């Protein structure tokens, strides 16, 4: 099979990208047949036979297994492809497979195309330079590695969601929160999931920004569908809308950047743009540095929207209304990481100033999210805020020039965050949709595997040595502290990450202790919980293995020696070094990196101690949540939602209502008609009618009256004629 792709290995990835569409199409057709046969079952005999066959849950299960099988096939292909890629780019890390086909030809109409050739110029009109948007793929080392990560995580989540959504299999589903009875939607779930995976892969391998933007939107749409999976629940609907709208705000920036790139440089291909923009001065193309700054800022705004950074992070916690595997796949591993991946992909485009902006955004995001996560009571909300915090770390890493550190953290985070979410999912599934930590406690006796795998995840995220989180976080902290020491005015960039590392350990262990340690707080909840089936626990085990071992390298205790980090770092030479990370302080720290490791371990230990002290031994229900002023401030997510609500939505709505009133004019309440546009229109109409009424009276309908008038006018005219002719 490999010789099929021998000459163009990149095509393997293209096939992998389009493969998920196959099960999606099949499921759609199946769903259509089921619907048609159900509605026509009385009418035709064949339809009723088909309906009996299609109605059984087996069909849904069969569809799910098809999707899982396809995902596993893709995972295999991606690993094979990654190996091929690594071997291919062994000598020169920046080598990549790329192939483009002409998609849209926007040719300036050739001069004189429309005048038919006169005798003078017989030769064809000169064709002026045609602008072309090429459609294709560009796969380099980072793309291959991330492609593999997404494939593996997706397949695990596909497998897990079969178990998690087993109650959707039945024909009649009782939705307590949505207060309604409806048909099972598993097939619908898998169709959209496949669609999402296709969009994600396409985003990873896209060569030009327009392709990226298309899959960017498709991913947003799929997240909208999946969040509103439990559509009957009001909060699900609102969350889906919020997510989509906030993403759109970010996409607006992305679109502006796209437009500037096209008008300025007449090309959207990422490698081409990287080549042009990496030179720094654009005087050759007649473009100013502010133009460059705005372009980069636009791109970053798109990523802020998608990766839920500080101004636009409000949608992610609400997105937890969707089913947990969705949160795991989309709102932890893949989609939110797309923003970071895009910046990494177009890293040379970003001037130093924008990188600084990225760094500071990431820094504030990680700190705010961490503080809010500490006071959350809903298990998924805690994980959501921790995701936002970790994304802040990645943005910070990119901001301070640690391209490979950021990407490596993206990779490891994908694994252990997926693990944590799936663990939470299995807990929720076991407790029959109970998500509140205050109701849990002591679950480790009933759900040992979930507890153990969750513990691995918690250790990984809190940066426990020898766990994958430690290697990637160390790489980032190393960069950050170097900046702090090197540029004292940016000390925050170094100090906040260190502080937040401790906070991360605190809220992760708080979660674990509340959920699994101590004695159960709600007897009824505890009674009904039991370990999840194998379909859910196998993915947990696989992911825990990955989140444990992905970061390892030889010698194992040396954080800088992670194999994957080296693979990623090799391609970093492509990007220019950020000024922040150079300087003599960096050199001093290099020798004494051991000092940094000690400092982070100390902070981590403090966090663990506080968490254990408060929750380790099974805290009572009331103690779990402090009700002080500070905690309410944190619970509200630093009042971001309130600010947006009061600052943007309400004034805007007030304005629109006023405009509507102004336009539609006073309803039955009366009021001066001149106030509204309709009023003006109506008043003009009335004025015309009023002025026409006297004229109407002349039309008496009596013919002789008309004749008389006619006669009189003729007499008048003749009189004038006579007078005129008299002279």
């Amino acid at each position, binding site marked *: 099979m490999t010789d099929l792709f021998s000459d163009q290995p990149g095509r393997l990835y293209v096939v992998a990208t389009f493969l998920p569409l196959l099960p999606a199409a099949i499921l759609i057709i199946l769903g259509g047949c089921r619907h048609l046969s159900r509605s026509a079952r009385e009418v035709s005999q064949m339809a009723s036979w088909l309906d009996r066959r299609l109605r059984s849950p087996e069909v849904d299960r069969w569809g799910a297994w098809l999707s899982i099988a396809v995902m596993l096939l893709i995972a295999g292909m991606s690993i094979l492809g990654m190996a091929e890629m690594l071997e291919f780019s062994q000598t020169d890390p920046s080598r990549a497979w790329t192939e483009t086909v002409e998609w849209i030809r926007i040719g300036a109409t050739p001069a004189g195309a429309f005048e038919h050739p006169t005798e003078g110029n017989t030769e064809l009109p000169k064709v002026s330079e045609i602008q072309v948007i090429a459609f294709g793929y560009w796969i380099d080392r980072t793309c291959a590695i991330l492609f593999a990560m997404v494939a593996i995580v997706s397949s695990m989540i596909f497998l897990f969601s079969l178990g998690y959504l087993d109650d959707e299999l039945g024909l009649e589903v009782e939705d307590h929160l949505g207060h309604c009875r409806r048909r099972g939607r598993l097939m619908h779930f898998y169709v959209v999931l496949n669609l999402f995976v296709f969009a994600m892969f396409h985003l990873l391998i896209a060569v030009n920004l327009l392709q990226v933007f298309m899959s960017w939107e498709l991913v947003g749409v799929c997240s909208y569908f999946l969040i509103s999976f439990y559509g009957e629940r009001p909060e699900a609907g609102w969350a889906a809308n919020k997510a989509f709208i906030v993403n759109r705000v970010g996409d607006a920036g992305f679109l502006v950047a796209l437009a500037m790139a096209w008008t300025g440089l007449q090309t959207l291909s990422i490698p081409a743009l990287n080549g042009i923009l990496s030179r720094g001065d654009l005087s050759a193309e007649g473009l100013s540095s502010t133009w460059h700054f705005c372009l980069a800022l636009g791109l970053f705004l798109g990523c802020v929207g998608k990766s839920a950074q500080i101004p636009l992070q409000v949608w992610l916690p609400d997105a937890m209304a969707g089913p947990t595997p969705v949160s795991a796949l989309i709102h932890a591993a893949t989609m939110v990481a797309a923003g970071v991946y895009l910046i990494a992909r177009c890293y040379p485009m970003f001037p130093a100033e924008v990188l600084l902006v990225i760094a500071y955004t990431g820094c504030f995001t990680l700190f705010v999210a961490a503080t809010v996560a500490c006071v959350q009571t809903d298990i998924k909300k805690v994980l959501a805020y921790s995701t936002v915090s970790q994304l802040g770390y990645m943005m910070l890493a990119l901001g301070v020039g640690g391209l490979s550190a950021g990407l490596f953290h993206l990779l490891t985070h994908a694994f252990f965050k997926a693990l944590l979410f799936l663990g939470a999912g299995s807990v929720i599934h076991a407790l029959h949709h109970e998500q509140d930590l205050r109701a849990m406690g002591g679950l480790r006796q009933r759900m040992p595997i979930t507890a153990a795998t969750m513990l691995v995840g918690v250790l990984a995220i809190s940066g426990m040595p020898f766990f994958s989180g430690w290697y990637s976080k160390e790489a980032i902290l190393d960069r950050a502290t170097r900046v702090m020491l090197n540029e004292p005015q940016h000390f925050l960039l170094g100090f906040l990450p260190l502080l937040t590392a401790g906070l991360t350990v605190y809220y992760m262990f708080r979660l674990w202790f509340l959920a699994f340690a101590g004695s159960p707080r709600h007897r009824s909840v505890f009674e009904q919980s039991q370990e999840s089936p194998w379909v859910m626990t196998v993915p947990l085990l696989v992911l825990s293995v990955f989140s444990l071992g992905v970061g390892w390298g030889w010698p194992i205790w040396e954080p800088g020696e992670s194999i994957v980090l080296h693979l990623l770092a090799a391609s970093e030479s492509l990007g220019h070094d950020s000024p922040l990370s150079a300087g003599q302080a960096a050199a001093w720290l290099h020798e004494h990196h051991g000092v940094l490791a000690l400092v982070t371990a100390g902070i981590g230990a403090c966090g663990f101690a506080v968490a254990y002290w408060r929750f380790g031994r099974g805290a009572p229900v009331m103690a779990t949540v402090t009700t002080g002023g500070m905690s309410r401030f944190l619970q509200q997510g630093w009042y971001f939602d309130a600010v947006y609500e009061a600052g943007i939505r309400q004034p805007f709505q007030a304005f629109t209502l006023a405009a509507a009133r102004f336009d539609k004019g006073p309803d039955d309440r009366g009021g001066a008609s001149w106030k509204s546009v309709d009023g003006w229109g109506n008043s003009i109409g009335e004025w015309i009618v009023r002025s026409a009424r006297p004229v*109407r*009276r*002349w*039309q*008496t*309908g*009596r*013919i*002789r009256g008309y*004749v*008389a008038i006619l*006669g009189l006018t003729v007499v008048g005219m003749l009189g004038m004629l006579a007078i005129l002719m008299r002279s």
Partner: protein
Amino acid sequence: MIVVDLSAFLVLSAFLFSCGIACIATKRNAIGILIGVELVLNAANLNFVAAARYLPSFRLEGQIFAIMVIVMAAAEAAVALAIFLNFYHTHTTIDVESASDLQG
């Protein structure tokens, strides 16, 4: 000794014309108006023929116009009568005063 020439005929047709207008203005009966119209048309015809007689250049056209007018008058009378019949059919009277349905 009045010499009979064009102006005499013009005066006569003017007289006919004003009689026609008077008839239209005074008759309440629809057919009275039709008769008035016939008078007016005859006045016009008389002018044509008189002009044809006394102006050599107008010799042929006068008669042709006159014939045209006569034919048109016949057609017009036919249609008018059909309309009056229909009106009589619905209103049982052809008094013009009662035909004021098309008022403003």
